């Protein structure tokens, strides 16, 4: 057991908390639920994934987020009131895209990069999600990085054959990239499922799990924060505050 626990970097949050965070960000930021009543809460939700990315030492994603947020807010607050017509619309669209979608993407990145497959499965079992949903979702954790690896190799092949964007073959570029991607993904998908099946995945009995998950201090903080934000927004919407 020493071997297993020695240098295990424990993630700050429980997978279930991460999922809840992801749902909140999706509903309030991407879905724009609550409208003006939840405006302040939305700003806080925007910055929450950045905080956690920082804690997980994902420097690049963190910096990326900080820079884009700063520009987007600066544009929206400083520049937009002085612009009219098409320019105004353009800035609105750009800042809208950044502020709406980036938080969701960053939260997703945080969840995927700090959760192992078995932690995820374990968490899903605790909240009684059936295997038919859990297993396809957990395959995603592996499938996307694998496809990204493939895409990297295809990129190499492209640049070696001197096929680059622009020029007369611009449209064909997409096709050239997609065809090897598809053949490789299909093949890998098939091999992955064959391998997991020979190792007994999908049996009717109860699976065990070696990882231990549980709520800690940070989880409680996140729950309280999200609950407070939600309550605040609801009260605001009802006109109490």
């Amino acid at each position, binding site marked *: 057991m020493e071997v*297993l626990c020695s240098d*295990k970097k424990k993630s700050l949050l429980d997978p279930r908390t991460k999922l809840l965070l992801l749902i909140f960000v999706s509903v309030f930021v991407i879905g724009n639920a609550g409208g003006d009543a939840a405006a302040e809460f939305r700003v806080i939700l925007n910055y929450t994934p950045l905080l956690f990315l920082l804690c997980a030492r994902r420097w690049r994603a963190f910096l990326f987020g900080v820079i884009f947020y700063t520009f987007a807010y600066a544009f929206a607050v400083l520049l937009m009131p002085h612009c009219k017509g098409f320019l105004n619309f353009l800035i609105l669209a750009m800042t809208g895209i950044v502020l709406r979608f980036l938080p969701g993407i960053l939260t997703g990145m945080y969840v995927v990069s700090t959760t192992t497959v078995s932690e995820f499965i374990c968490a899903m079992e605790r909240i009684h999600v059936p295997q038919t949903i859990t297993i396809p979702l957990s395959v995603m954790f592996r499938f996307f990085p694998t496809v990204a690896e*493939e895409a990297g190799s295809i990129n190499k*092949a*492209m640049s*070696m054959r001197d096929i680059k964007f622009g020029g007369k073959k611009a449209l064909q570029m997409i096709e050239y990239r997609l065809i090897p991607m598809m053949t490789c993904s299909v093949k890998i998908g098939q091999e992955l499922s*064959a*391998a997991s099946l*020979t190792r007994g995945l999908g049996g009717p009995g109860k699976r065990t799990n070696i990882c231990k998950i549980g709520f800690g201090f940070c989880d409680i903080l996140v729950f309280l924060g999200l609950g407070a934000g939600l309550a605040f927004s609801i009260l605001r919407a009802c006109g109490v505050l």
Partner: protein
Amino acid sequence: MIELKNVSFTYGSENGIEKGAAGGVGETVSNGSLNNINLSIKDGECLLITGGSGCGKTTILRLINGLIPNFFEGLLSGSVTINGQNVSQTELYDTAKTVSTVFQNPRSQFFNVDTTSELAFACENQGMAREEILRRVNRTVVEMQLEPLMNKSLFNLSGGQKQKIACASVAVTGNDIILLDEPSANLDLYSIGELKELLKKWKSEGKTIVVAEHRISYLWDIADRTVILNEGQIIKELSRPQMYKLTENDLHKMGLRTNKDCRVKPDNDTELVMPDNDTLSSSGNNTDLSSSGLTRGSLSKSNILLLQNFRYKYKTGYLALSIPQMQIPVGQITAITGNNGDGKTTFLNCLCGLGHRSKGTIEFKGKTYKRKARQKLVYLVMQDVNHQLFTESVMDEVLISQLEPNEEEAHKILASLDLDDFAKRHPQSLSGGQKQRVAVACAIASGREILLFDEPTSGLDYTHMLQIGKILRDLKALGKTVIVVTHDRELIEECCDNEMKLLDYSKK
């Protein structure tokens, strides 16, 4: 006891073609179907199944682990039983409690992303108690000395390390029947040695082992029995004494690889380069080149390819490659060898000028090429050729590689590689070997002077290995400089003029 009685099988869709099936010059593609196989494997026996590409080796393993007919569909007749139980009618999760499989491709046989959960995965599926699983994982980790690999992301491991994890996850289950499907296809000599030790250990523990393999030399003194397949039929069954009588020539006649241990020739190398002292002190990892079979005196400036200050640093600051100077003869075939993880792939990327982290220059025919310029001088035929075939037809593939599309010229190139009949076919519909030749055709069409090959013979049988050897020699006859990164001793003996070895000094 595993028994196959009168088993015949034909793949339903194109499932059989998808794997292996190298498909050589002008021959019909065998698709791995089986025809009336009778085979019984005793408990504790170590059985080697071998034969040419597409002969049905993998199909037999898939029958035993139940993937046929439960995952790969097709026409099956006859019966496959393990200890009296019919595998074909048993659910896969029940078969998984007695049979474990190690697959060929280390990139696609893991379910988890981190190594520790991967080892526990099969036991978790069986619903064993958590403490029992941890105890077993710990025991395996200690026995196989895997401590350095624990809690790592599988995406950061080398091919050899991944295969080790795959074997370890089999060991954790403690299953009595272990199947291995070309486990050595991506391994270097050192890792093969480790695999061999592991198989010996399993054998001494009384496990039943069935290996389907092309490279039979490392198994020759472990296997109790060898079965040779051809076109889906057993053409020979050899017991241990009979195996010893078999000569290399007999094997080659059947299209099989050598049974001799291919040893690296004794090192009387001339050191072409000395490691740079600065780098030695500043970083943990240095790559050194030593070469055999050529001396400095025989090279004049006009017929060498001079590599200078080759460096590759990872994002993390880890120096993966450092070659102050290296000389490769022009117009010859040079093999680059070395162990898994010693920087061979990085070396190729660097030579092609791929990736902005590649540093260094090359001098060729009096001209100096920097990174970007190299991309137009060098052509790489990748290990997985699927990555470099994009278009709708073989003809298009060649045409977009040419500087100026020229159909007549393209036909000539295709004809020289026996591909003219396939000019209108979709490249992805061809067999593995044919795809590889299409990639070579593109390389020729590009008119580039330096051609690189990354492991062109991994997973190929003797006949197809010879074909690759011939293609390489033909390229040499065209005046090209050919550089092959390979583990394959037989290919090196067959066609390479020089051999250079990459060494990682930090590990020595």
